[in-house]
């Protein structure tokens, strides 16, 4: 038990802050209520609780705008309140608050009938990470032209450091894109369109989302993991004999997804 030394008979600062935390997160006002002066103590605590929940809900609504549109504002607010209680922020940076939203949605019974929501949340979180991720200087393709072709097999491409990759068994890009449209625009998505593989990245200002075929997705994953071009090619052609290396490379080069390269030692 902590010793209360500073003001005789009163709680320490630590006690007060812990009590306040339970009042705000768990509505356990009685622990701290005795420490607060004057009338209307419960209501005064409610102001603090409401402020915390309102601003955190707003942060989640900004970080997951498509999710919010899919379920509607009222339901989103309800769901966000549950999320905040379960996973309150552990850093003061709200720009990426909601990292556990996909897992939360998978366990949230009220959205059982909407199984694609978790992957939509995943995409929105990755979009956000790319938005706030590291910037890079441009890359001049000429430097690649100067490389001895025999060394290409051992080359390790460095892709955009803010690039994120994901796969879903649902057409989440279609869902995402349809919900960027103006309010009231027609949105018709058939989930049976099947899976999608996505690269999410930012070159300068705009975040871009690029659909990939399954082979290219693995190719991107291997390159992102720092594998050599030779190794990545070998891995993919084993699984996808029809993989077109030239086209995949063109896709990378034309979209300026490379920021540098090195060679195996």
């Amino acid at each position, binding site marked *: 038990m902590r010793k209360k030394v500073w003001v005789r008979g009163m709680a320490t600062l630590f006690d007060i802050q812990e009590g306040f935390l339970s009042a705000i997160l768990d*509505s356990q006002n009685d622990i701290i209520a005795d420490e607060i002066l004057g009338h209307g103590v419960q209501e005064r605590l409610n*102001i*603090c609780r*409401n*402020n915390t*929940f*309102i*601003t955190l809900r*707003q942060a989640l609504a*900004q970080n997951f705008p498509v999710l*919010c*549109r*899919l379920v*509607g*504002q*009222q*339901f989103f607010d*309800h*769901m966000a309140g549950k999320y905040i209680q379960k996973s309150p922020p552990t850093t003061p*940076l709200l*720009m990426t*608050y909601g990292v556990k939203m996909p897992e939360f949605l998978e366990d949230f019974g*009220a*959205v*059982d*009938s*909407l*199984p694609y929501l978790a992957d939509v949340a995943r995409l929105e979180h990755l*979009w956000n990470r790319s*938005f706030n991720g590291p910037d890079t200087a441009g890359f001049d393709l000429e430097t*690649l*032209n100067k490389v001895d072709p*025999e060394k*290409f*097999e051992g080359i390790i491409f460095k892709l955009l450091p803010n690039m994120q990759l994901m796969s879903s068994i649902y057409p989440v890009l279609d869902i*995402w*894109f*349809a*919900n960027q449209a103006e309010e009231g625009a027609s*949105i*018709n*998505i*058939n*989930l*049976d369109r099947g899976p999608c593989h996505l690269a999410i990245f930012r070159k300068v*200002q*705009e975040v*871009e*989302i690029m*659909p990939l075929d399954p082979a290219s997705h693995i190719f991107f994953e291997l390159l992102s993991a720092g594998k050599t*071009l030779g190794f990545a*090619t070998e891995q993919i052609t084993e699984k996808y004999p029809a993989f077109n*290396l*030239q*086209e995949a*490379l*063109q*896709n990378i*080069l*034309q979209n300026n997804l490379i920021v540098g390269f090195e060679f195996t030692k």
Partner: protein
Amino acid sequence: MTKNIKSKSLFVASAVAAALTLSAVPAAQAKGKAEKCYGIVKAGQNDCATATASCAGTATKDGQSDAWIYVPKGTCAKIIGSSLKSGK
């Protein structure tokens, strides 16, 4: 074996060379289709104001009893498919 390695190396080298040649076109002609979205006015979320509605009742008290009123009511209604469980 040696021949195989040599040919793989050649295969990679020629693919890179061809991709480099064909990529020397303006970016506007690039083939990959990426969905762009400007996020520039995405607001910074940390601030030091009190939310205006903080004084309005207890915004977060939704006990089990009234949970039934919370049903998703957004654009999700427009998404169909056989993989959806029959929700209500």
